[in-house]
């Protein structure tokens, strides 16, 4: 009995590891893309805002000197209170236009939705909804379909969490580092690769370790779409499989797998952390 159970659990745990590693490989770089997206400062309407801001500044300067301020069409001279309210309006719209950053807005919206809803729900949506909407039925109707669907959702979900960790890591690097690179004539890309990146990695290792350990356990959520990972395999002995049913211990035994594997993960990440201790 023991051997049958262990070999079934082993098989399930291989599936768990497969989902775990593919998620890491996909979400670590995708997280950086989303991070750059949310930090992107592209403001297509910024020029309008800048124009309004400089007009506001001119009005305020004129008011300070007691000079006349003329209306937008250049005709009428405005009273002081009119000029002040015009400056206020200009200030408001300048902030709106310079603050309209579509790439950043979209990225932060995506991060909000993904982090704000349960991963289990997201797995159900990606697995079942396309089948209702697409003409040809579910796109996941192939042998590895459940794995691919789960992997896509896991990668996307974890990339969103990672992106926020990255953002914190990048913003934690002192501005002086960026400025030192700039005055030495480096490009933005060079500054990121050669100056910021390693300092950011050093900062994000502890919070990333947290997420990675959570990911090991979160892979069990994939059984909601019948991805046959280790908990699914353990539960099968309770429901009935391999001529056994009502066996409770295999389900709880899966905890050992997670515990041992997380021990390995913790050890490796601790080593990485120590490796980065050569600088401060």
């Amino acid at each position: 009995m023991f051997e049958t159970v262990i070999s079934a659990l082993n098989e399930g745990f291989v599936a768990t590891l497969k989902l775990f590693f593919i998620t890491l490989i996909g979400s670590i770089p995708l997280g950086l893309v989303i991070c750059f997206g949310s930090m992107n400062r592209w403001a297509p309407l910024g020029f309008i805002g800048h124009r309004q801001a400089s007009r506001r500044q001119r009005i305020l300067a004129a008011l300070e000197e007691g000079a006349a301020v003329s209306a937008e069409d250049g005709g009428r001279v405005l009273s002081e209170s009119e000029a002040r309210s015009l400056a206020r309006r200009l200030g408001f719209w300048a902030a709106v236009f310079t603050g309209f950053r579509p790439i950043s807005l979209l990225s932060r919206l995506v991060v909000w939705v993904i982090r704000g809803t349960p991963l289990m729900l997201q797995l159900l949506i990606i697995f079942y909804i396309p089948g209702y909407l697409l003409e040809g039925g579910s796109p996941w109707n192939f042998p590895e379909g459940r794995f691919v669907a789960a992997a896509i959702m896991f990668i996307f979900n974890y990339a969103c969490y990672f992106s926020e960790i990255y953002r914190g890591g990048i913003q934690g690097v002192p501005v002086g580092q960026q400025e030192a690179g700039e005055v030495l004539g480096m490009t933005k890309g060079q500054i990121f690769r050669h100056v910021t990146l390693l300092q950011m990695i050093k900062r994000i290792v502890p919070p990333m370790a947290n997420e990675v350990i959570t990911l090991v356990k979160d892979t069990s959520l994939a059984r909601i779409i019948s991805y046959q990972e280790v908990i699914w395999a353990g539960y099968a002995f309770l429901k009935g499989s391999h001529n056994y049913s009502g066996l409770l211990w295999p389900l709880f035994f899966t905890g050992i797998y997670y515990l041992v594997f997380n021990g390995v993960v913790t050890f490796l990440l601790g080593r990485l952390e120590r490796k980065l201790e050569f600088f401060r």
Partner: protein
Amino acid sequence: MSILEVRNLEKHFNKTKVLNDISLSLEQGQALSMIGSSGSGKTTLLRCLNFLETPDSGSIAVKGEVLFDAADPATRREADVRRKRLHFGLVFQSFNLFPQYTALQNVTLAPELLARERPDYKERKREINAAIEAEGRELLASMGLSDREGHYPHQLSGGQQQRVAIARALAMHPDILCFDEPTSALDPELTGEVLRVIRSLAEQRTTMIIVTHEMDFALEVSDRVVFMDGGFIVEQGGREVITDPQEERTRRFLAGYRH
């Protein structure tokens, strides 16, 4: 012809005018000291010269080439800024060394990255990098840091870090080297070694702009002195600005430094 011509520079931060009609010029080989209390705009002026801030109006020219003119949008193109700022070097108050690189790597990183743009880089890569490294060692040696080449910034004292930062700036061969209060973040017993290095640069006729609170030092190394207050240049001239100030505000400021 002067090496640096700054004309009518102005800069606002929101409603506060931090630079007000700043005009100054500097000759090749001269050292200029900028003195004045904190918040007088000295650092902002240095940051404008190094394109870390964009002035609202005015112009900056080096060797007759207009690098920045607020009235001419063509001079404000982001893509050109990188090349233009190489005319200037900047030594920060807080050193800003790259912590993950050794002293020598801090000095050679930027020249190595710049060299990659040379047309002959591919075939002469090894030779070029060897030359950059040799120069880096030489610069560190001239700072008295030969035995610290392989040390990381956190293993160095503040004075040593600042000397590495000076070597790092010199490695880019700037026309004008700017110092932003280079000794303000140092313990008093470490300022001497940094000032000694700057002094020897002055003796080699390096063109420099030094923002400093060390009056005796400013008097000793400067050919030109600028006193700033409230965003204005109140007084500028030779060393007499310190020894024999004409303006009441300069006198009052300097009185705070007399012992």
